[in-house]
């Protein structure tokens, strides 16, 4: 039995097969009435949460910084794409992918600026800069009449379908995996372990940090764009410190520096918060309580610092297994 699972874990065709099967299932489920709307809503939410969680894990887990501003990037992506599809090129489903890309690009651009500005700071002070960034973004939307002020953007076409969510989730995980196992990924992990030593060994700390930030904020923006076109209205309050806290909970629940952990954390969080919905306010007592208990007994999260071998590129596993 153990042998069977070991061979299954080593099988290089499992991952592509799962992706194809998932994509086919997404298309079928979207077009035929096999799932009710609520189930579809929860599945799409789970996909968006996986993108958010994996992209934040790049900065908070692999790079070891503590960013609390991920909801701000989500907000930028959501607003940019919503303005794109409601004001600039309305009523055209064909431009939806462009609007998602646009949302990601805007978030990545601002993420680049933020990374440039905050390069001198690290640790807790970086956390505070991202907090200030989050609050500034929220406050800025409230004061710009063009994007609806405190009322937000209404009447966005609900164009986020299951296949699109699945597609973007796979793209995000694939991109982050390839980044993490590249030269830049090694640099990012080295920075987490010891920034000064990494610098002394010739790691280009500045470039690696900025790249990690830009990729993370790009996918934060993509998730925001999908979110906006899922619930079809957004306001500045949708992306506040509570939203950021939720993403942090997912990351540290699933485990730092682990993509499998991100998937697990996001899925557990999504389904638990739906399942505990009847409890009302008690839901937000029980979820943090579980997190605190998890931190006390398993400080790095469920899958912290570990990875499913399917998610590790082939050449890496061969390298590690070589004598």
């Amino acid at each position, binding site marked *: 039995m153990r042998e069977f699972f070991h061979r299954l874990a080593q099988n290089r065709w499992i991952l592509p097969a799962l992706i194809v099967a998932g994509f086919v299932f997404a298309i079928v489920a979207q077009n035929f009435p096999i799932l009710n709307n609520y189930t579809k809503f929860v599945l799409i939410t789970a996909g968006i949460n996986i993108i958010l969680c994996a992209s934040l894990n790049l900065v*908070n887990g692999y790079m*070891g910084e*503590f960013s609390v501003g991920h909801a701000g990037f989500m907000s930028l992506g959501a607003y940019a794409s919503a303005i794109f599809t409601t004001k600039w090129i309305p009523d055209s489903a064909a431009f939806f992918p462009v609007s998602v890309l646009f949302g990601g690009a805007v978030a990545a651009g601002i993420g680049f600026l933020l990374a440039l*500005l*905050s390069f*001198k*700071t690290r*640790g*807790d*002070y970086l*956390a*505070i*800069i991202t*907090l*200030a*960034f989050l*609050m*500034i973004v*929220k*406050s*800025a939307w*409230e*004061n710009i009449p063009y994007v609806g002020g*405190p009322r937000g953007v209404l009447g966005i076409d609900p164009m986020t379908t299951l296949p699109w969510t699945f597609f973007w989730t796979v793209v995000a995980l694939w991109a982050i995996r390839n980044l993490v196992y590249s030269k830049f990924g090694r640099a990012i992990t080295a920075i987490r372990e*010891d920034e*000064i*030593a990494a610098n*002394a060994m010739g790691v280009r700390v500045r470039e690696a940090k900025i790249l990690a930030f830009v990729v993370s904020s790009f996918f934060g923006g993509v998730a925001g764009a999908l979110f906006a076109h899922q619930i079809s209205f957004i306001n500045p309050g949708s992306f506040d*410190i*509570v939203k950021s*806290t939720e993403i*942090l*909970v997912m990351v*540290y629940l699933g485990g*730092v520096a682990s993509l499998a952990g991100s998937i697990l954390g996001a899925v557990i969080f999504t389904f638990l918060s739906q399942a505990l919905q009847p409890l*009302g*306010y*008690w839901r*937000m*007592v029980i*979820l*943090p*309580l579980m*997190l*605190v208990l998890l*931190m*006390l007994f398993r*400080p*790095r999260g469920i899958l912290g610092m570990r990875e499913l071998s399917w998610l590790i590129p082939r050449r890496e596993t061969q390298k590690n297994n070589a004598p």
Partner: protein
Amino acid sequence: MIPAVVADFAGTLPDWGVYLAQQSVNALQLGSIYALIALGYSMVYGVLVMINFAHGDLFMLGAFACMLLVAALPWHLPFVVVLLMVMLIIGLLGVLIERIAYRPLRGGPRVSAVITALGCGLIIENLTLVKFPYSQHMPTDLFVSTSFRFAGVTISTLQLLIIGVSAILMVALDFLIQKTRYGMAMRAISFDAGTVPLMGIPANRIISLTFFVGAALGGAAGMLYGLAYPVIAPSMGILVGWKAFIAAVIGGIGSIRGAVLGGFLLGAVEVMVVAYLPSTYRDLISYSLLLIILIFKPYGLLGSPPNVKV
């Protein structure tokens, strides 16, 4: 409730001067509350190098504890007694949280302590929300405020009380930290936590004391805030707590005097922005100020960079 004006000293200031002076008094009131909360963040950071995200919620509980105490106790207690009881309760709660949630994680990954603190804050906030789903009113007979006018500026005795109590607490804290053996032990832990136990200092007791004092100051701030803005809700822990955290950072987190400076600075900026600009710009400008200060002074106004050893 707008207190009645009982005395009016003849005014000679021009209109804009009266307005500015009036807003300055308001800024002092808000600033002293921010400073009291910011002290709690800074003290804990000083000894444990950890952001205690549950501190804002302890501040909120200060207001609720005051309300519940006044409602539950049959006697009409004087203000000072209620204040001391609130400080005692919230202080012990701070010690309890440190004992249960933070101490087991000391020595582990630093981020997990921060996440635990966030979780504790959420638990406190939402438990309060379960008990009090609607906004509550602070008792009005605890301190009956009157106001007088001085050169055209209206000042209430409540404002004087808030500023005065905060000032007394801050001076007492400064005395504790600079002049007593306990304060010396706190400063020693913040200077080098590893060596302190070797010198025979009970580090755990000193850390508990730090949490007690920090939380008690936060509880006092919550009570004063509740008296100044008498409609209280569980969400004020996040709203005001994060602001006070920013005040601590602007001053340089870990620095006691920096926290006070940051508190008054943030109070002044917030009040003046609302006084002279549209009120929706308040958060935009105070957070932009934070960002600008951190870009040019990465460790706050009075903070010092940590010693990094390879």
